[in-house]
Protein backbone atom coordinates (compact mmCIF):
# COMPACT_ATOMS: atom_id res chain seq x y z
CA UNK A 1 0.00 0.00 0.00
CA UNK A 2 2.55 2.68 0.94
CA UNK A 3 4.48 1.97 -2.32
CA UNK A 4 1.39 2.51 -4.47
CA UNK A 5 0.60 5.74 -2.70
CA UNK A 6 4.09 6.94 -3.40
CA UNK A 7 3.57 6.36 -7.14
CA UNK A 8 0.30 8.20 -7.08
CA UNK A 9 2.12 11.14 -5.50
CA UNK A 10 4.66 11.15 -8.36
CA UNK A 11 1.90 11.49 -10.94
CA UNK A 12 0.42 14.42 -9.11
CA UNK A 13 3.87 15.99 -9.07
CA UNK A 14 3.94 15.95 -12.91
CA UNK A 15 0.77 17.97 -13.15
CA UNK A 16 2.10 20.57 -10.74
CA UNK A 17 5.28 20.86 -12.77
CA UNK A 18 3.37 22.03 -15.86
CA UNK A 19 1.85 24.91 -13.89
CA UNK A 20 5.29 25.88 -12.62
CA UNK A 21 6.85 26.30 -16.15
CA UNK A 22 3.99 28.54 -17.25
CA UNK A 23 4.97 31.04 -14.56
CA UNK A 24 8.56 31.00 -15.73
CA UNK A 25 10.42 32.56 -12.72
CA UNK A 26 11.17 31.42 -9.16
CA UNK A 27 11.89 27.88 -10.16
CA UNK A 28 13.43 26.98 -6.81
CA UNK A 29 10.41 28.18 -4.85
CA UNK A 30 8.00 26.55 -7.18
CA UNK A 31 9.97 23.40 -6.69
CA UNK A 32 9.41 23.64 -2.93
CA UNK A 33 5.78 24.50 -3.37
CA UNK A 34 5.40 21.66 -5.76
CA UNK A 35 7.03 19.27 -3.41
CA UNK A 36 4.79 20.37 -0.57
CA UNK A 37 1.76 20.22 -2.82
CA UNK A 38 2.79 16.83 -4.03
CA UNK A 39 3.28 15.69 -0.46
CA UNK A 40 -0.13 16.94 0.57
CA UNK A 41 -1.74 15.31 -2.41
CA UNK A 42 0.01 12.08 -1.59
CA UNK A 43 -1.29 12.35 1.99
CA UNK A 44 -4.82 13.05 0.80
CA UNK A 45 -4.68 10.10 -1.51
CA UNK A 46 -3.36 7.88 1.25
CA UNK A 47 -5.99 9.23 3.64
CA UNK A 48 -8.75 8.22 1.28
CA UNK A 49 -7.76 4.61 1.55
CA UNK A 50 -6.16 4.51 5.02
CA UNK A 51 -9.03 5.96 6.99
CA UNK A 52 -11.78 3.85 5.44
CA UNK A 53 -9.70 0.75 6.09
CA UNK A 54 -9.08 1.76 9.68
CA UNK A 55 -12.71 2.76 10.12
CA UNK A 56 -13.77 -0.59 8.79
CA UNK A 57 -11.41 -2.36 11.13
CA UNK A 58 -12.77 -0.26 13.99
CA UNK A 59 -16.36 -1.02 13.10
CA UNK A 60 -15.57 -4.69 12.73
CA UNK A 61 -13.94 -4.58 16.13
CA UNK A 62 -17.05 -2.99 17.65
CA UNK A 63 -19.21 -5.76 16.28
CA UNK A 64 -17.71 -7.86 19.07
CA UNK A 65 -17.06 -5.50 21.97
CA UNK A 66 -15.86 -8.36 24.15
CA UNK A 67 -12.63 -8.39 22.11
CA UNK A 68 -11.69 -4.78 22.82
CA UNK A 69 -8.78 -4.12 25.12
CA UNK A 70 -10.92 -2.05 27.47
CA UNK A 71 -13.39 -4.88 27.80
CA UNK A 72 -10.85 -7.63 28.32
CA UNK A 73 -9.06 -5.51 30.89
CA UNK A 74 -12.27 -5.30 32.94
CA UNK A 75 -13.73 -8.75 32.46
CA UNK A 76 -11.29 -11.50 32.99
CA UNK A 77 -13.10 -14.27 31.14
CA UNK A 78 -15.61 -14.93 28.39
CA UNK A 79 -19.32 -14.70 28.96
CA UNK A 80 -20.76 -17.06 26.42
CA UNK A 81 -23.21 -19.26 28.22
CA UNK A 82 -21.20 -22.24 29.41
CA UNK A 83 -21.35 -23.70 32.93
CA UNK A 84 -17.72 -22.70 33.42
CA UNK A 85 -18.42 -19.09 32.59
CA UNK A 86 -21.50 -18.94 34.79
CA UNK A 87 -19.36 -20.09 37.67
CA UNK A 88 -16.52 -17.72 36.80
CA UNK A 89 -18.98 -14.84 36.64
CA UNK A 90 -19.59 -15.33 40.34
CA UNK A 91 -16.12 -16.34 41.44
CA UNK A 92 -14.15 -13.62 39.69
CA UNK A 93 -16.31 -10.76 40.98
CA UNK A 94 -15.33 -9.28 44.29
CA UNK A 95 -18.94 -8.58 45.30
CA UNK A 96 -20.57 -11.69 43.95
CA UNK A 97 -17.96 -14.11 45.21
CA UNK A 98 -19.72 -13.85 48.54
CA UNK A 99 -21.82 -16.50 46.85
CA UNK A 100 -20.71 -19.96 45.94
CA UNK A 101 -20.86 -20.76 42.22
CA UNK A 102 -23.58 -23.31 42.68
CA UNK A 103 -26.14 -23.93 45.37
CA UNK A 104 -28.68 -26.51 46.43
CA UNK A 105 -31.51 -26.42 43.93
CA UNK A 106 -34.14 -25.92 46.63
CA UNK A 107 -32.22 -23.23 48.52
CA UNK A 108 -33.31 -20.63 46.00
CA UNK A 109 -36.93 -21.16 46.98
CA UNK A 110 -38.26 -18.01 48.58
CA UNK A 111 -40.39 -20.02 50.99
CA UNK A 112 -37.32 -21.36 52.77
CA UNK A 113 -35.26 -18.25 53.66
CA UNK A 114 -37.91 -15.61 53.00
CA UNK A 115 -34.93 -13.69 51.62
CA UNK A 116 -34.87 -11.76 54.86
CA UNK A 117 -31.12 -11.76 55.49
CA UNK A 118 -30.49 -10.41 52.02
CA UNK A 119 -33.27 -7.83 52.30
CA UNK A 120 -31.88 -6.67 55.64
CA UNK A 121 -28.45 -6.27 54.09
CA UNK A 122 -29.88 -4.38 51.13
CA UNK A 123 -31.70 -2.04 53.49
CA UNK A 124 -28.43 -1.46 55.34
CA UNK A 125 -26.87 -0.37 52.03
CA UNK A 126 -29.82 1.91 51.27
CA UNK A 127 -29.46 3.41 54.74
CA UNK A 128 -25.74 3.99 54.31
CA UNK A 129 -26.35 5.72 50.99
CA UNK A 130 -29.25 7.95 52.07
CA UNK A 131 -27.50 8.55 55.41
CA UNK A 132 -24.35 9.82 53.73
CA UNK A 133 -26.47 12.21 51.65
CA UNK A 134 -28.25 13.44 54.76
CA UNK A 135 -24.90 14.12 56.40
CA UNK A 136 -24.20 16.76 53.74
CA UNK A 137 -26.99 18.87 55.20
CA UNK A 138 -26.86 18.10 58.90
CA UNK A 139 -24.87 19.65 61.74
CA UNK A 140 -25.02 17.88 65.11
CA UNK A 141 -25.35 21.05 67.16
CA UNK A 142 -28.21 22.35 69.26
CA UNK A 143 -28.45 25.51 67.18
CA UNK A 144 -28.49 23.89 63.77
CA UNK A 145 -29.78 20.31 64.02
CA UNK A 146 -33.51 21.02 64.06
CA UNK A 147 -33.20 23.79 61.47
CA UNK A 148 -31.23 21.50 59.20
CA UNK A 149 -34.07 19.02 59.27
CA UNK A 150 -36.56 21.77 58.44
CA UNK A 151 -34.27 22.91 55.65
CA UNK A 152 -34.08 19.36 54.34
CA UNK A 153 -37.84 19.06 54.42
CA UNK A 154 -38.61 22.31 52.69
CA UNK A 155 -35.70 23.57 50.61
CA UNK A 156 -33.29 20.82 49.69
CA UNK A 157 -34.30 19.25 46.36
CA UNK A 158 -35.70 15.81 47.19
CA UNK A 159 -34.67 16.43 50.79
CA UNK A 160 -37.99 15.27 52.13
CA UNK A 161 -37.87 12.10 50.07
CA UNK A 162 -34.34 11.48 51.30
CA UNK A 163 -35.28 11.86 54.94
CA UNK A 164 -38.41 9.72 54.53
CA UNK A 165 -36.48 6.97 52.80
CA UNK A 166 -33.88 6.92 55.54
CA UNK A 167 -36.52 6.76 58.23
CA UNK A 168 -38.69 4.07 56.67
CA UNK A 169 -35.76 1.95 55.56
CA UNK A 170 -34.59 1.98 59.19
CA UNK A 171 -37.96 0.70 60.38
CA UNK A 172 -38.07 -1.91 57.64
CA UNK A 173 -34.59 -3.05 58.62
CA UNK A 174 -35.69 -3.67 62.21
CA UNK A 175 -38.65 -5.70 60.95
CA UNK A 176 -36.38 -7.53 58.51
CA UNK A 177 -33.91 -8.53 61.21
CA UNK A 178 -36.68 -9.87 63.43
CA UNK A 179 -38.25 -11.89 60.64
CA UNK A 180 -34.80 -13.19 59.62
CA UNK A 181 -34.11 -14.33 63.17
CA UNK A 182 -37.56 -15.89 63.32
CA UNK A 183 -37.00 -17.99 60.19
CA UNK A 184 -33.47 -18.96 61.27
CA UNK A 185 -35.00 -20.24 64.48
CA UNK A 186 -37.91 -22.03 62.82
CA UNK A 187 -35.62 -23.84 60.41
CA UNK A 188 -33.32 -24.86 63.25
CA UNK A 189 -30.48 -23.18 61.38
CA UNK A 190 -28.65 -22.29 64.58
CA UNK A 191 -27.82 -25.92 65.22
CA UNK A 192 -24.39 -27.41 64.66
CA UNK A 193 -22.24 -26.05 63.01
CA UNK A 194 -23.94 -22.66 62.94
CA UNK A 195 -24.03 -21.84 66.65
CA UNK A 196 -21.39 -19.17 66.32
CA UNK A 197 -23.09 -17.47 63.40
CA UNK A 198 -26.32 -17.30 65.37
CA UNK A 199 -24.40 -15.38 68.00
CA UNK A 200 -22.91 -13.04 65.44
CA UNK A 201 -26.52 -12.55 64.36
CA UNK A 202 -27.65 -11.68 67.89
CA UNK A 203 -24.95 -9.01 68.01
CA UNK A 204 -26.14 -7.68 64.65
CA UNK A 205 -29.66 -7.55 66.04
CA UNK A 206 -28.51 -5.45 68.99
CA UNK A 207 -26.45 -3.20 66.72
CA UNK A 208 -29.43 -2.70 64.39
CA UNK A 209 -31.61 -1.60 67.31
CA UNK A 210 -28.87 0.69 68.63
CA UNK A 211 -28.46 2.26 65.19
CA UNK A 212 -32.17 3.04 65.11
CA UNK A 213 -32.14 4.34 68.64
CA UNK A 214 -29.15 6.66 68.23
CA UNK A 215 -30.70 8.06 65.04
CA UNK A 216 -33.92 8.88 66.85
CA UNK A 217 -32.40 11.79 68.75
CA UNK A 218 -30.74 13.47 65.76
CA UNK A 219 -33.68 15.62 64.50
CA UNK A 220 -33.57 17.17 67.98
CA UNK A 221 -37.36 17.33 68.17
CA UNK A 222 -39.72 16.47 71.02
CA UNK A 223 -40.20 12.91 69.80
CA UNK A 224 -36.52 12.04 69.83
CA UNK A 225 -35.74 14.05 72.91
CA UNK A 226 -38.32 12.33 75.09
CA UNK A 227 -37.73 8.88 73.66
CA UNK A 228 -34.04 9.19 74.45
CA UNK A 229 -34.78 10.70 77.83
CA UNK A 230 -37.05 7.77 78.71
CA UNK A 231 -34.49 5.33 77.31
CA UNK A 232 -31.45 6.67 79.07
CA UNK A 233 -33.30 7.23 82.32
CA UNK A 234 -33.27 3.47 82.60
CA UNK A 235 -29.47 3.56 82.54
CA UNK A 236 -29.74 5.51 85.76
CA UNK A 237 -31.08 2.34 87.34
CA UNK A 238 -28.26 0.06 86.23
CA UNK A 239 -27.31 -2.12 89.20
CA UNK A 240 -24.01 -0.94 90.57
CA UNK A 241 -23.39 1.59 87.81
CA UNK A 242 -26.36 3.93 87.93
CA UNK A 243 -27.05 6.49 90.63
CA UNK A 244 -30.56 5.14 91.23
CA UNK A 245 -29.82 1.49 90.66
CA UNK A 246 -29.47 -1.19 93.32
CA UNK A 247 -26.07 -0.83 94.97
CA UNK A 248 -25.39 2.23 92.79
CA UNK A 249 -25.08 4.74 95.64
CA UNK A 250 -23.01 2.22 97.57
CA UNK A 251 -20.61 2.13 94.61
CA UNK A 252 -20.34 5.92 94.78
CA UNK A 253 -22.58 6.69 91.83
CA UNK A 254 -24.04 10.17 91.47
CA UNK A 255 -25.86 11.77 88.51
CA UNK A 256 -22.49 13.19 87.51
CA UNK A 257 -20.42 10.08 87.23
CA UNK A 258 -22.70 7.13 86.47
CA UNK A 259 -23.24 5.24 83.19
CA UNK A 260 -25.97 7.59 82.10
CA UNK A 261 -23.58 10.50 82.40
CA UNK A 262 -21.11 8.58 80.29
CA UNK A 263 -23.69 7.81 77.62
CA UNK A 264 -25.03 11.35 77.39
CA UNK A 265 -21.86 13.27 78.08
CA UNK A 266 -23.81 15.14 80.74
CA UNK A 267 -26.53 14.76 83.30
CA UNK A 268 -29.29 15.79 80.85
CA UNK A 269 -29.98 15.14 77.18
CA UNK A 270 -28.28 18.14 75.65
CA UNK A 271 -25.62 19.26 73.17
CA UNK A 272 -23.12 16.60 74.17
CA UNK A 273 -25.73 13.87 73.94
CA UNK A 274 -26.57 15.06 70.43
CA UNK A 275 -22.94 14.95 69.40
CA UNK A 276 -22.44 11.54 70.97
CA UNK A 277 -25.43 9.97 69.29
CA UNK A 278 -24.34 11.52 66.01
CA UNK A 279 -20.90 9.97 66.22
CA UNK A 280 -22.21 6.58 67.32
CA UNK A 281 -24.92 6.70 64.68
CA UNK A 282 -22.83 7.80 61.71
CA UNK A 283 -19.42 6.35 62.47
CA UNK A 284 -19.12 4.01 65.43
CA UNK A 285 -21.98 1.55 65.07
CA UNK A 286 -22.02 1.41 61.24
CA UNK A 287 -18.36 0.41 61.20
CA UNK A 288 -18.79 -2.20 63.91
CA UNK A 289 -21.96 -3.51 62.24
CA UNK A 290 -20.19 -3.74 58.88
CA UNK A 291 -17.41 -5.77 60.42
CA UNK A 292 -19.87 -8.14 62.02
CA UNK A 293 -21.78 -8.47 58.75
CA UNK A 294 -18.57 -9.44 56.97
CA UNK A 295 -17.97 -12.11 59.60
CA UNK A 296 -21.63 -13.18 59.37
CA UNK A 297 -21.52 -13.70 55.60
CA UNK A 298 -18.11 -15.35 55.78
CA UNK A 299 -19.42 -17.80 58.33
CA UNK A 300 -22.52 -18.61 56.27
CA UNK A 301 -20.11 -19.79 53.57
CA UNK A 302 -17.68 -21.52 55.90
CA UNK A 303 -20.46 -23.34 57.75
CA UNK A 304 -21.43 -24.98 54.48
CA UNK A 305 -23.79 -22.43 53.00
CA UNK A 306 -27.45 -22.06 53.80
CA UNK A 307 -28.62 -24.77 56.19
CA UNK A 308 -31.28 -26.14 53.91
CA UNK A 309 -33.77 -27.05 52.78
CA UNK A 310 -32.15 -30.20 54.09
CA UNK A 311 -33.53 -33.70 53.72
CA UNK A 312 -35.79 -34.41 56.70
CA UNK A 313 -34.44 -36.66 59.44
CA UNK A 314 -36.35 -39.43 61.13
CA UNK A 315 -36.65 -39.83 64.87
CA UNK A 316 -34.39 -42.87 64.90
CA UNK A 317 -31.62 -41.08 63.05
CA UNK A 318 -31.44 -38.36 65.64
CA UNK A 319 -28.78 -39.92 67.75
CA UNK A 320 -26.47 -40.89 64.94
CA UNK A 321 -23.83 -38.29 64.12
CA UNK A 322 -24.79 -36.43 60.99
CA UNK A 323 -22.69 -36.22 57.79
Amino acid at each position, binding site marked *: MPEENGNGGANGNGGANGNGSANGNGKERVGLLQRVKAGVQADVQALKTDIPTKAKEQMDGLKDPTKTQVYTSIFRHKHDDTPRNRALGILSNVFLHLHPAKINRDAVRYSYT*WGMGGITFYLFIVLTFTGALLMFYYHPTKVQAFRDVLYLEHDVPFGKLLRNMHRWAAHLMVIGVWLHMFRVFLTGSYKKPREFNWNVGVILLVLTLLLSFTGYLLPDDQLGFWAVTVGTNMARATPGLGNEGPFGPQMGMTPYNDVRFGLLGGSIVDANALLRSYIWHCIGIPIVASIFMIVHFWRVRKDGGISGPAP*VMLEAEGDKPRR
Partner: protein
Amino acid sequence: MDWHQLWVIISAPDNVPIVGLIPLLCFYIYLAWKQAKGNDDLIAELEADPAMAKTHHRKTWPFKPGWQKEVHVWPFLLRIEFLAAIIITIILMVWSITLNAPLEEPANPNLTMNPSKAPWYFLGLQEMLVYFDPWIAGVVMPTLIIVGLMIIPYVDTNPLGSGYYTWKQRKFAISTFLFGFIVLWISMIIIGTFIRGPGWQWFWPGQTWDHNRQIYEVNRDLPDLFGIASNAGKMIFGALVVGGYFVLGGLGVYSLFRRYMAKDFKRMSLVQFSMTQVFLLIMLALPLKMILRLAWHIKYVWITPWFNV
Protein backbone atom coordinates in the same frame (compact mmCIF):
# COMPACT_ATOMS: atom_id res chain seq x y z
CA MET B 1 -66.43 4.17 69.69
CA ASP B 2 -64.11 7.01 68.83
CA TRP B 3 -63.05 6.20 65.28
CA HIS B 4 -61.08 9.39 65.03
CA GLN B 5 -58.91 8.47 68.01
CA LEU B 6 -58.35 5.02 66.54
CA TRP B 7 -57.39 6.50 63.20
CA VAL B 8 -55.00 8.97 64.81
CA ILE B 9 -53.17 6.13 66.50
CA ILE B 10 -53.10 3.75 63.55
CA SER B 11 -52.09 6.36 61.03
CA ALA B 12 -49.37 7.99 63.13
CA PRO B 13 -46.43 7.62 60.74
CA ASP B 14 -44.21 5.89 63.27
CA ASN B 15 -46.94 3.37 64.05
CA VAL B 16 -47.39 2.32 60.44
CA PRO B 17 -44.50 -0.18 60.62
CA ILE B 18 -46.28 -2.06 63.40
CA VAL B 19 -49.58 -1.98 61.56
CA GLY B 20 -47.63 -3.56 58.72
CA LEU B 21 -45.74 -5.97 60.96
CA ILE B 22 -48.91 -7.75 62.12
CA PRO B 23 -50.07 -9.04 58.71
CA LEU B 24 -46.45 -9.77 57.76
CA LEU B 25 -46.02 -11.93 60.83
CA CYS B 26 -49.31 -13.71 60.19
CA PHE B 27 -48.22 -14.42 56.63
CA TYR B 28 -44.82 -15.79 57.59
CA ILE B 29 -46.20 -17.88 60.43
CA TYR B 30 -48.64 -19.35 57.93
CA LEU B 31 -45.85 -19.97 55.42
CA ALA B 32 -43.70 -21.69 58.04
CA TRP B 33 -46.63 -23.70 59.36
CA LYS B 34 -47.56 -24.91 55.87
CA GLN B 35 -44.04 -26.17 55.23
CA ALA B 36 -43.75 -27.68 58.70
CA LYS B 37 -46.96 -29.59 58.13
CA GLY B 38 -45.75 -30.83 54.76
CA ASN B 39 -42.49 -32.04 56.27
CA ASP B 40 -44.20 -33.62 59.28
CA ASP B 41 -46.54 -35.54 57.01
CA LEU B 42 -43.58 -36.73 54.96
CA ILE B 43 -41.72 -37.76 58.10
CA ALA B 44 -44.72 -39.73 59.33
CA GLU B 45 -44.98 -41.46 55.97
CA LEU B 46 -41.29 -42.36 55.96
CA GLU B 47 -41.31 -43.54 59.57
CA ALA B 48 -44.10 -45.93 58.65
CA ASP B 49 -42.32 -47.25 55.57
CA PRO B 50 -38.58 -47.95 56.14
CA ALA B 51 -38.06 -49.21 52.60
CA MET B 52 -39.30 -45.93 51.18
CA ALA B 53 -37.19 -44.01 53.70
CA LYS B 54 -34.05 -45.58 52.23
CA THR B 55 -34.68 -44.36 48.69
CA HIS B 56 -36.71 -41.20 49.17
CA HIS B 57 -35.02 -37.85 48.55
CA ARG B 58 -36.70 -36.62 51.74
CA LYS B 59 -38.09 -33.32 50.65
CA THR B 60 -41.61 -32.25 49.93
CA TRP B 61 -40.51 -30.76 46.64
CA PRO B 62 -40.27 -33.02 43.61
CA PHE B 63 -36.94 -34.54 42.69
CA LYS B 64 -36.33 -36.98 39.88
CA PRO B 65 -33.25 -39.12 39.30
CA GLY B 66 -31.05 -37.37 36.78
CA TRP B 67 -31.94 -33.91 37.98
CA GLN B 68 -28.97 -31.91 39.13
CA LYS B 69 -28.81 -31.44 42.88
CA GLU B 70 -27.32 -27.97 42.49
CA VAL B 71 -28.08 -25.00 40.31
CA HIS B 72 -25.94 -22.08 39.22
CA VAL B 73 -26.07 -19.00 41.40
CA TRP B 74 -26.09 -16.98 38.21
CA PRO B 75 -28.83 -16.70 37.14
CA PHE B 76 -30.99 -18.71 39.52
CA LEU B 77 -30.17 -16.96 42.78
CA LEU B 78 -28.94 -13.58 41.58
CA ARG B 79 -32.06 -12.88 39.58
CA ILE B 80 -34.11 -13.37 42.74
CA GLU B 81 -31.81 -11.07 44.69
CA PHE B 82 -31.95 -8.36 42.04
CA LEU B 83 -35.71 -8.68 41.86
CA ALA B 84 -35.99 -8.44 45.65
CA ALA B 85 -33.82 -5.32 45.64
CA ILE B 86 -36.02 -3.72 42.99
CA ILE B 87 -39.23 -4.59 44.81
CA ILE B 88 -37.91 -3.29 48.12
CA THR B 89 -36.78 -0.09 46.42
CA ILE B 90 -40.20 0.42 44.89
CA ILE B 91 -41.98 -0.21 48.19
CA LEU B 92 -39.63 2.20 49.93
CA MET B 93 -40.10 4.87 47.26
CA VAL B 94 -43.89 4.66 47.32
CA TRP B 95 -43.92 4.65 51.12
CA SER B 96 -41.57 7.66 51.27
CA ILE B 97 -43.57 9.63 48.74
CA THR B 98 -46.91 9.01 50.43
CA LEU B 99 -45.97 9.18 54.09
CA ASN B 100 -43.81 11.76 55.79
CA ALA B 101 -41.41 10.98 58.60
CA PRO B 102 -42.65 12.58 61.81
CA LEU B 103 -41.13 15.80 63.03
CA GLU B 104 -42.44 17.34 66.22
CA GLU B 105 -41.71 20.68 67.81
CA PRO B 106 -38.08 21.39 68.68
CA ALA B 107 -36.84 19.54 71.74
CA ASN B 108 -38.03 21.22 74.90
CA PRO B 109 -37.00 19.81 78.28
CA ASN B 110 -39.67 21.89 80.00
CA LEU B 111 -42.59 20.47 78.02
CA THR B 112 -43.09 16.79 78.75
CA MET B 113 -44.69 14.73 76.01
CA ASN B 114 -47.63 12.74 77.30
CA PRO B 115 -47.58 9.86 76.60
CA SER B 116 -43.86 9.89 76.08
CA LYS B 117 -43.09 6.71 74.26
CA ALA B 118 -39.86 5.00 73.33
CA PRO B 119 -39.41 4.02 69.66
CA TRP B 120 -41.83 1.21 68.87
CA TYR B 121 -39.24 -1.57 68.86
CA PHE B 122 -38.49 -0.85 72.53
CA LEU B 123 -42.09 -0.56 73.66
CA GLY B 124 -42.03 -4.09 75.05
CA LEU B 125 -39.46 -2.97 77.58
CA GLN B 126 -41.32 0.23 78.35
CA GLU B 127 -44.48 -1.80 78.96
CA MET B 128 -42.51 -3.85 81.47
CA LEU B 129 -41.89 -0.65 83.44
CA VAL B 130 -45.50 -0.94 84.60
CA TYR B 131 -44.75 -4.18 86.34
CA PHE B 132 -41.07 -3.93 87.22
CA ASP B 133 -38.62 -1.35 88.50
CA PRO B 134 -36.46 0.34 85.88
CA TRP B 135 -33.34 -1.61 86.79
CA ILE B 136 -35.16 -4.83 85.90
CA ALA B 137 -37.14 -3.63 82.89
CA GLY B 138 -34.45 -1.40 81.45
CA VAL B 139 -31.21 -3.18 82.27
CA VAL B 140 -31.64 -6.73 83.49
CA MET B 141 -34.29 -7.76 80.98
CA PRO B 142 -32.47 -6.57 77.84
CA THR B 143 -29.34 -8.30 79.12
CA LEU B 144 -31.24 -11.50 79.78
CA ILE B 145 -32.89 -11.36 76.35
CA ILE B 146 -29.51 -11.05 74.65
CA VAL B 147 -27.89 -13.74 76.77
CA GLY B 148 -30.96 -15.94 76.42
CA LEU B 149 -30.86 -15.70 72.65
CA MET B 150 -27.16 -16.41 72.63
CA ILE B 151 -27.38 -19.60 74.65
CA ILE B 152 -30.15 -21.10 72.49
CA PRO B 153 -27.78 -23.02 70.19
CA TYR B 154 -25.85 -24.37 73.15
CA VAL B 155 -28.77 -25.64 75.22
CA ASP B 156 -30.89 -26.98 72.39
CA THR B 157 -29.35 -30.41 72.00
CA ASN B 158 -32.08 -31.78 69.76
CA PRO B 159 -30.33 -32.85 66.54
CA LEU B 160 -33.61 -33.10 64.63
CA GLY B 161 -35.14 -30.31 62.62
CA SER B 162 -31.92 -28.72 61.42
CA GLY B 163 -32.45 -27.13 58.03
CA TYR B 164 -36.14 -27.75 57.52
CA TYR B 165 -39.42 -26.55 58.97
CA THR B 166 -41.01 -28.96 61.41
CA TRP B 167 -43.30 -28.82 64.39
CA LYS B 168 -43.52 -32.39 65.59
CA GLN B 169 -39.79 -32.82 66.06
CA ARG B 170 -39.25 -29.56 67.96
CA LYS B 171 -42.48 -28.86 69.82
CA PHE B 172 -40.80 -27.61 72.96
CA ALA B 173 -38.20 -25.39 71.29
CA ILE B 174 -40.71 -23.81 68.95
CA SER B 175 -43.37 -23.17 71.55
CA THR B 176 -40.81 -21.60 73.87
CA PHE B 177 -39.58 -19.30 71.13
CA LEU B 178 -43.10 -18.38 70.06
CA PHE B 179 -43.95 -17.60 73.67
CA GLY B 180 -40.95 -15.31 73.99
CA PHE B 181 -41.19 -13.68 70.59
CA ILE B 182 -44.93 -13.38 70.02
CA VAL B 183 -46.41 -13.26 73.53
CA LEU B 184 -43.70 -11.44 75.46
CA TRP B 185 -42.21 -9.22 72.76
CA ILE B 186 -44.58 -8.51 69.87
CA SER B 187 -47.81 -8.40 71.85
CA MET B 188 -46.26 -6.06 74.43
CA ILE B 189 -45.24 -3.79 71.57
CA ILE B 190 -48.78 -3.89 70.23
CA ILE B 191 -50.14 -2.99 73.67
CA GLY B 192 -47.58 -0.22 74.03
CA THR B 193 -48.45 1.22 70.64
CA PHE B 194 -52.19 0.89 70.36
CA ILE B 195 -53.46 0.64 73.92
CA ARG B 196 -51.32 2.84 76.12
CA GLY B 197 -52.41 6.47 76.24
CA PRO B 198 -51.64 9.51 78.38
CA GLY B 199 -50.12 8.65 81.72
CA TRP B 200 -49.37 5.21 80.25
CA GLN B 201 -52.93 4.26 81.09
CA TRP B 202 -54.95 1.57 79.40
CA PHE B 203 -57.26 2.85 76.65
CA TRP B 204 -59.09 0.25 74.55
CA PRO B 205 -58.87 0.78 70.80
CA GLY B 206 -61.47 3.38 69.97
CA GLN B 207 -61.62 4.80 73.47
CA THR B 208 -60.94 8.53 73.56
CA TRP B 209 -57.67 9.56 75.16
CA ASP B 210 -58.58 11.45 78.29
CA HIS B 211 -55.63 13.47 79.47
CA ASN B 212 -57.21 14.17 82.84
CA ARG B 213 -58.17 10.63 83.71
CA GLN B 214 -56.89 9.60 87.09
CA ILE B 215 -56.88 6.08 88.33
CA TYR B 216 -56.62 5.49 92.03
CA GLU B 217 -55.09 2.14 92.54
CA VAL B 218 -53.90 1.12 95.93
CA ASN B 219 -50.99 -1.14 95.28
CA ARG B 220 -49.86 -3.46 97.99
CA ASP B 221 -46.79 -5.54 98.43
CA LEU B 222 -47.01 -9.26 98.83
CA PRO B 223 -45.62 -9.28 102.40
CA ASP B 224 -48.44 -6.91 103.43
CA LEU B 225 -51.00 -9.52 102.50
CA PHE B 226 -49.42 -11.80 105.03
CA GLY B 227 -49.27 -9.11 107.66
CA ILE B 228 -45.49 -8.88 107.70
CA ALA B 229 -44.52 -5.41 108.82
CA SER B 230 -40.85 -5.40 109.77
CA ASN B 231 -38.27 -4.64 107.10
CA ALA B 232 -36.17 -7.64 107.94
CA GLY B 233 -39.26 -9.81 107.81
CA LYS B 234 -40.19 -8.45 104.38
CA MET B 235 -36.70 -9.12 103.09
CA ILE B 236 -36.60 -12.69 104.33
CA PHE B 237 -40.14 -13.40 103.20
CA GLY B 238 -39.44 -12.06 99.69
CA ALA B 239 -36.24 -14.03 99.40
CA LEU B 240 -38.13 -17.15 100.42
CA VAL B 241 -40.91 -16.55 97.89
CA VAL B 242 -38.53 -15.83 95.01
CA GLY B 243 -36.20 -18.64 96.03
CA GLY B 244 -39.16 -20.95 96.47
CA TYR B 245 -40.43 -20.08 93.01
CA PHE B 246 -37.14 -21.08 91.46
CA VAL B 247 -36.73 -24.24 93.52
CA LEU B 248 -40.29 -25.47 93.00
CA GLY B 249 -40.36 -24.29 89.41
CA GLY B 250 -37.04 -25.99 88.79
CA LEU B 251 -38.44 -29.19 90.18
CA GLY B 252 -41.50 -28.80 87.99
CA VAL B 253 -39.38 -28.30 84.88
CA TYR B 254 -37.33 -31.33 85.83
CA SER B 255 -40.35 -33.52 86.30
CA LEU B 256 -41.81 -32.38 82.98
CA PHE B 257 -38.57 -32.99 81.12
CA ARG B 258 -38.04 -36.39 82.70
CA ARG B 259 -41.51 -37.50 81.73
CA TYR B 260 -42.22 -35.90 78.39
CA MET B 261 -38.83 -35.09 76.94
CA ALA B 262 -36.77 -37.97 78.21
CA LYS B 263 -34.60 -38.07 75.11
CA ASP B 264 -33.72 -34.38 75.30
CA PHE B 265 -33.09 -34.66 79.02
CA LYS B 266 -30.70 -37.55 78.52
CA ARG B 267 -28.72 -35.60 75.96
CA MET B 268 -28.37 -32.48 78.10
CA SER B 269 -25.46 -31.82 80.42
CA LEU B 270 -26.07 -30.43 83.90
CA VAL B 271 -25.13 -26.91 82.84
CA GLN B 272 -27.31 -27.07 79.75
CA PHE B 273 -30.27 -28.28 81.76
CA SER B 274 -29.94 -25.78 84.57
CA MET B 275 -29.55 -22.89 82.12
CA THR B 276 -32.74 -24.04 80.40
CA GLN B 277 -34.52 -24.20 83.74
CA VAL B 278 -33.41 -20.75 84.84
CA PHE B 279 -34.29 -19.00 81.60
CA LEU B 280 -37.61 -20.80 81.31
CA LEU B 281 -38.56 -19.79 84.84
CA ILE B 282 -37.54 -16.18 84.28
CA MET B 283 -39.64 -16.06 81.13
CA LEU B 284 -42.61 -17.53 82.96
CA ALA B 285 -42.14 -15.10 85.82
CA LEU B 286 -43.07 -12.14 83.61
CA PRO B 287 -46.72 -13.08 83.02
CA LEU B 288 -46.96 -14.28 86.64
CA LYS B 289 -45.89 -10.91 87.96
CA MET B 290 -48.27 -9.22 85.52
CA ILE B 291 -51.15 -11.32 86.79
CA LEU B 292 -50.22 -10.56 90.41
CA ARG B 293 -50.41 -6.89 89.60
CA LEU B 294 -53.54 -6.94 87.46
CA ALA B 295 -55.56 -9.29 89.62
CA TRP B 296 -54.39 -8.44 93.15
CA HIS B 297 -52.70 -5.04 92.76
CA ILE B 298 -49.45 -6.39 94.08
CA LYS B 299 -46.47 -4.18 93.40
CA TYR B 300 -43.50 -5.89 94.97
CA VAL B 301 -42.85 -9.41 96.06
CA TRP B 302 -39.47 -8.95 97.58
CA ILE B 303 -38.53 -5.75 99.37
CA THR B 304 -34.99 -4.99 100.52
CA PRO B 305 -33.28 -1.74 101.42
CA TRP B 306 -31.34 -1.86 98.13
CA PHE B 307 -33.74 -3.14 95.54
CA ASN B 308 -37.32 -4.32 95.12
CA VAL B 309 -38.59 -7.09 92.92
